[in-house]
């Protein structure tokens, strides 16, 4: 291999590496620096080194702890998503008439944008909104509530919207996996007299195990890293800060309170949590690689 050939791969990838370095590597290094500083805004308010002060601040800040708590609450969406995905994937896999139409429709929430979804559900969930209207029409007046305006209910309501939006993804993943499982397994179970739930329990779920493990980790990462838009559009962290999540806390500290150091420290904590999940995903991937590949 001559010199030119050895450098060839780098020449092709250089533009990509450059952009990724600029957008990921440089910012992450700066974060380390910001996290131990009180970042000043001008020559009159110079930047000061504060050591671990920012970290001490966030771990004493009930708003930050509450935000992490809200992210952990969002993890409760994951088991719901798993159960519903498996059930609906199995229903579609039974190939009822029109299953392709059902599949296309069930996937629609996943392609709608979060701002649109947030605004529309914002109206539907109002106290005088259509959801309560529906409940009253069914005679369930007692269940009507101020879904996004009540601090006790706002977070569960947002969780319901997230499940609504993310479910299509899980269904498609499970369905794709089921299609690659030999039909003879299902057939054999039915010949043995297994009913629908027994097939689900003893054939579908074991076959889906690797897919479900991946889906669970991917969704947990989503619940930490990608929920900003829901909060920004539906509640802006309210009512009474009951829906502040880590991303929104960082956003507020940096872009509203100008506390860049505090935001950077919180960012590193968030990154550490994501890192744990990432490691879990890599392990799962290594474990299941031989039969998860399709």
């Amino acid at each position, binding site marked *: 291999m001559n010199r030119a050939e050895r450098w060839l*791969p780098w020449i*092709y*990838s250089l*533009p*990509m*590496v450059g*952009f*990724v370095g*600029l*957008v*990921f590597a*440089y*910012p*992450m290094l*700066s*974060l380390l620096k*910001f996290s131990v500083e009180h970042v000043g805004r001008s020559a009159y308010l110079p930047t000061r080194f504060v050591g671990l002060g920012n970290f001490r601040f966030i771990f004493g800040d009930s708003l930050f702890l509450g935000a992490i708590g809200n992210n952990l609450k969002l993890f409760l969406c994951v088991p719901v998503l798993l159960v519903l995905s498996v059930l*609906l994937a199995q*229903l579609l896999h*039974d190939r*009822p008439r029109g299953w392709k139409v*059902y599949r296309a*429709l*069930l*996937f*629609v*929430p996943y*392609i*709608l*944008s*979060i*701002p*649109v979804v947030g*605004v*529309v*559900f914002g*109206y*539907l969930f109002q106290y005088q909104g*259509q959801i309560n209207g529906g409940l009253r029409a069914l005679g369930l007046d007692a269940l009507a509530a101020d879904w996004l305006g009540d601090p006790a209910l706002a977070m569960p309501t947002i969780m319901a919207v997230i499940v609504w939006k993310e*479910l299509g993804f899980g269904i*498609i*993943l499970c369905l*794709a996996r089921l299609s690659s499982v030999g039909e003879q397994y299902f057939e054999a179970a039915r010949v043995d007299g297994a009913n629908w739930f027994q097939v689900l329990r003893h054939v579908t779920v074991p076959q889906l195990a690797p897919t479900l493990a*991946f*889906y669970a980790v991917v969704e947990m990462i989503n619940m930490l*890293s*990608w929920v900003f*838009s829901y909060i*920004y*559009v539906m509640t802006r962290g309210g009512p009474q800060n009951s829906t502040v999540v880590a*991303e929104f806390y*960082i*956003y507020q500290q*940096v872009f509203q309170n100008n506390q*860049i150091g505090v935001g*950077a420290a919180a*960012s590193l904590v*968030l*990154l550490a949590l994501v890192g744990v999940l990432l490691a879990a995903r890599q392990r799962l991937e290594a474990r299941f690689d031989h039969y*998860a590949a399709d």
Partner: protein
Amino acid sequence: MPPTRRLGAWSASVVRHAALLAFAAIALLPLYFMLTSALKTNDEFLGNTFGLPEHPVASTLLNSVAGGELYVWILNSLIVTVFSVMLSTVLAALAAYPIAMMKWRSGPYILGGLIALMVIPPIVLVIPLFQIAAATGQLNTYQAVVAIYTGVLLPFSTFLLTNFFRTIPYALVEAALMDGAGSWRIFRSVVLPLSGPALATVVTVQALWVWNELLIAVVFLQKDSLRTLMIGLTVFNSRYRIDVPVVMAGMLWATLPMLLLYLVGQRYFIRGLTAGGVKG
């Protein structure tokens, strides 16, 4: 078949369709609300907030775009989406080519690094990037936003294209090498012509992501005239709150491009999103 068995199969089918219909109805609820409300006048909406429009009108849909702002926002979103998706796809294809097809010791490490980067929360990147942009006078410019989107998209697009290029039979590359083709020639005449569906998949998924992105747009495009559609919609919503049909008409216009893209390219959407999810 004994009659009870047939009855059982029939009722199972009814239950199955009922369950699927119920979930499909829930999935379509916001779309139904947008569509029916956008066809009502505000007067009709106040008396009939959820039913089908009794006197469907086009005026609400037309009024919602009459101010001209929605056009501007849609145009801004299109500019940002087209440029960042094009740039990211070209650079990803160039980078995926050696990772997938050349003997390159660093290749697998680069790929591993990209997979890890795909889960980084954008909020974390935005803080230092905002400082750089402010220091260099690049706030409120499209080139800054396009560069950031490109960088954020590249790990995913490079990863997906690498996986796809690996499925191209190596015999084809060898045959071209025999004919004396250089690496660029092989890329242009062998790899790219075989990658149409993969490129379509990558482009669709990226376009969906950029079109729907909110955080980076909120932070870096703070001037009214530069707003993308997703920020515009939040402004639009607070401005017309008392006229729900107009808000819903705006939401409908904002949704149509992606909905049409989905109807046309459902295959690519599903393939790209599942590929990114399973191994990403």
